[in-house]
């Protein structure tokens, strides 16, 4: 038993199967008091290196594996066992051990710490039992890794990429994912077959050459947006692929590639989207370049980053300037400060519009109007501006101002009153004469203030008229009275002219008021005179009428009485031979008296009928009718009448008057025939540019030169052997002249007379 009591427990402990440590509870060192051989072997340590040293000194933390929880767990476990005198279990932890060459070996452990006490309960040691489960953990990890690879491989093959591996010069399809099979519309059966036998169309897409090249050179072939024609659902379309064909080697030492690993990624949508963006950009660019305005982008420091062609033309530069020149260089010096200030405000985020002058690189000055907005970019906000060249507009405005100024100067120096109004008729300017005449000021007159100087009886009609006239856009005229500074009204003729633009829009009205007061007075006086004359004329007319009538009554009585007397004395004739003769003379005197009165009456009639209507007359027919009326006289005198008026068939004249003209001339020709020869009367007509000339020529008594001069005078008679009142030719002359013509006579005493009646050709109106 004694022998048994001298058992070498240390040796027994050391050789016990399992990994143990006996530790002194001297935290934090935890000095190793004993270690089992198995643990020494397992951690590649010698006992002398271990016993007497702290456990964390012998098994330090692997600084490259900071996530390994072994050392921390051990410390916690030991502490728990010491302080709480309980068995502390450590789950699986990684606790790397030194590999003897300065490095560490990955190890996984499962362990527990157990307090060892004497019979009084005093803590003597800590027994730490551990088990190396590294192999088990590693094996578990491998399975997990494999699963992960398989998962990734499967995911990779399911990725929206066409993947295939082709081996050998025949390009045997070693692997083809679903995407690739779908691409060629094939099943998995093609795997193991040569590519171009399984998919002949692939050969024509240039793949054969690519694959050959990759295999021969060992160089990877990569192509972006490779276009491929494909038919999907019967529709042929171009599809785009990013293609990578990469050589692969079976063994790392192979010199020749075993085959080609190929990946194709469908980027059609991307390419089409890109193309759409490109097209849209191209369109935008075209619009920008085509616009006649200047479009520019200026960086915050004033650098001209972009300018379209129109803009470059305005600054007399070219695209070389972009990104190099500062815009201030072309801004007119006097406008630079403002431009810079505004530019900065735009870059701060404001929208602005303003005008400035530029001086082109070749020296041409232009007036510009710009509308600028901030344009966000990588280097802060720039200025994006659309700028118009308004030089011409400005010049036109200036010219207009100058011309207006000239007009005002001119208008202030004319006799008339003058004004200008806007297109709606609101007057905004009067010349000085207006103010001098009316005694008003512009403040009183502006707009529609002119109504104040109009006569109350006229203002309403004037307003009504001009309101309409402004709308018409045409020249207008109106007369109305205007009050002068003394409060008197004088008549003015107002004329207004619209000033229009090229499109015909009224820009303004220019008007003048001309004083026509004197003229108005003269007109009024003339009108009064005219009325007086009309009255006198009427009185005269009435006088002649009354005179002829009042004369007629007693004459008629005398005639009647003579008739009675003649009857009463009829029986006494035989005793008083003179009675018959006396009564006959009385009757003759009576007749002459009556004819004179009749002529006076005719004259009144002619004056009253001067407005008889002008019609188209057949001259030949009319002459024929007159000749018929004169037939008894023609027969009595055995006159020869020759009519040749075919040259003027139609004449425009009052029928009654022309009949009277012809009748008078023909009856005169018959009356004043020469006693010693047969009367020959020739009636003719000829056409002249402005007249029809009616001629009546006779071979009668003829007239002396003196007589011809007085021929057309009223009551003038040159022959006393025939009846006449001396009024016929006077009336003929009046009738012909009244219709715009005239009458001429040529005569020779003893040979005959020719009358030429010039009848105006065109129909005489009124």
């Amino acid at each position, binding site marked *: 038993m004694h022998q048994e009591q001298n058992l070498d427990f240390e040796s027994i402990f050391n050789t016990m199967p399992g990994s143990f440590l006996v530790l002194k509870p001297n935290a934090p060192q935890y000095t190793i008091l004993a270690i089992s051989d198995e643990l020494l072997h397992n951690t590649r340590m010698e006992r002398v290196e271990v016993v007497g040293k702290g456990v964390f000194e012998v098994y330090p933390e692997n600084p490259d594996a900071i996530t390994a929880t072994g050392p921390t767990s051990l410390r916690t476990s030991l502490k728990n066992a010491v302080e709480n005198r309980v068995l502390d279990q450590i789950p699986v932890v990684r606790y790397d051990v030194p590999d003897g060459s300065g490095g560490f070996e990955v190890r996984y452990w499962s362990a527990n710490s157990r307090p060892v006490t004497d019979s009084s309960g005093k803590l003597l040691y800590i027994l730490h039992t551990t088990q190396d489960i590294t192999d088990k953990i590693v094996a578990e990890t491998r399975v997990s890794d494999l699963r992960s690879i398989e998962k990734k491989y499967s995911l990779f093959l399911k990725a929206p990429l066409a993947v295939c591996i082709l081996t050998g010069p025949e390009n045997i399809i070693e692997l083809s994912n679903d995407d690739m099979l779908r691409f060629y519309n094939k099943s998995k059966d093609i795997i193991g077959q040569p590519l171009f036998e399984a998919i002949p169309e692939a050969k024509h897409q240039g793949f054969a050459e690519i694959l050959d090249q990759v295999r021969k050179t060992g160089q990877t072939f990569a192509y972006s947006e490779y276009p491929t024609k494909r038919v999907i659902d019967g529709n042929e379309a171009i599809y785009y692929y990013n293609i990578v064909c990469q050589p692969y080697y079976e063994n790392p030492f192979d010199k020749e590639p075993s085959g080609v690993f190929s990946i194709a990624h469908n980027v059609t949508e991307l390419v089409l989207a890109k193309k759409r963006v490109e097209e849209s950009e191209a369109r935008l660019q075209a619009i920008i370049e085509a616009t006649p305005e200047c479009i520019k982008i200026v960086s915050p420091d004033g650098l001209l980053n972009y300018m379209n062609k129109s803009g470059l033309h305005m600054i007399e530069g070219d695209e070389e300037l972009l990104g190099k020149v500062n815009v201030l260089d072309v801004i007119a010096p006097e406008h630079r400060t403002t431009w810079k200030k505004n530019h900065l405000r735009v870059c701060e985020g404001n929208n602005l519009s303003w005008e400035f002058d530029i001086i082109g690189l070749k020296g041409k000055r232009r007036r510009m109007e710009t509308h600028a907005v901030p344009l966000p970019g990588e280097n802060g906000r720039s200025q994006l501006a659309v700028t118009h060249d308004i030089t011409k507009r400005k010049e036109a405005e200036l010219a207009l101002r100058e011309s207006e100024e000239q007009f005002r100067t001119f208008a202030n120096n004319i006799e008339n009153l003058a004004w200008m109004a806007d297109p709606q008729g609101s007057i905004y300017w009067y010349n000085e004469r207006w103010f001098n005449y009316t005694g008003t000021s512009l403040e009183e007159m502006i707009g529609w203030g002119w109504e104040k100087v109009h006569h109350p009886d006229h203002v309403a009609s004037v307003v009504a008229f001009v309101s309409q006239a402004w709308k018409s856009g045409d020249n207008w005229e109106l007369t109305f009275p205007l009050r002068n500074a003394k409060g008197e009204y004088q008549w003015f003729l107002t004329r207004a002219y619209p000033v229009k633009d090229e499109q015909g829009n009224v820009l303004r009205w220019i008007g003048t008021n001309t004083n026509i007061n004197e003229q108005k007075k003269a007109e009024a006086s003339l009108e009064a005179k005219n009325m007086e004359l009309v009255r006198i004329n009427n009185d005269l007319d009435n006088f002649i009428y009354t005179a002829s*009538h009042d004369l007629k*009554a007693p*004459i*008629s*009585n005398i005639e*009647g*009485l003579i*008739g009675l007397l003649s009857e009463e004395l009829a029986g006494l004739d035989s005793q008083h031979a003179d009675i018959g003769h006396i009564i006959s003379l009385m009757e003759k005197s009576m007749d002459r008296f009556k004819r004179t009165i009749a002529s006076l*009456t005719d004259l*009144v009639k002619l004056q009253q009928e001067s407005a008889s209507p002008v019609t188209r007359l057949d001259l030949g027919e009319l002459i024929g009718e007159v000749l018929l009326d004169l037939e008894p006289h023609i027969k009595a005198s055995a006159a020869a009448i020759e009519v040749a008026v075919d040259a003027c068939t139609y004449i425009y004249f009052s029928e009654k008057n022309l009949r009277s003209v012809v009748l008078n001339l023909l009856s005169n020709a018959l009356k004043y025939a020469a006693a010693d020869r047969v009367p020959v009367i020739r009636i003719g007509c000829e056409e002249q540019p402005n007249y029809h000339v009616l001629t009546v020529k006779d071979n009668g008594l003829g007239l002396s030169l003196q007589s011809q001069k007085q021929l057309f005078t009223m009551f003038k008679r040159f022959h006393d052997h025939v009846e006449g009142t001396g009024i016929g030719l006077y009336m003929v002359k009046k009738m012909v002249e009244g219709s715009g013509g005239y009458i001429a006579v040529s005569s020779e005493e003893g040979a005959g007379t020719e009358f030429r009646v010039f009848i105006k050709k065109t129909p005489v109106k009124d």
Partner: protein
Amino acid sequence: MNKLTNILLVDDDPIANYVNKTLLEKIDGVEQVTTAPNGKVALQLLEQQTSPNNTPDLILLDINMPVMNGIEFMQAYKELAIEGKETIKVIILTTSNHPRDLACFTDLPIAGFLNKPLTSGKISGLLDEHFPA
């Protein structure tokens, strides 16, 4: 025998009335020639007639007269309602052949115009036209 027996002369001029009355009374069958100095008197004479037997066959009417002229008389005469009016012939006897005067009788019931002075010749023409045997 002429049908003309009763004549009314309307004229303000007594000389004309004398001459005309003298001439008219010479006509065979004329029994009565009455004179009136103006239209108003003539109208009264017509209105006062009690029997159609007294109605004149012919009225010779001057135009220009005081009180009521020939035109005014005719306007009144047109409206006048007397027995036997339909057989009366009204002849305007005038010195005027002025259209202004003649036009006034348009639409008035006149039988014709005669220019003064009345002569035997004119009377026989009148009888032939209006009072044929």
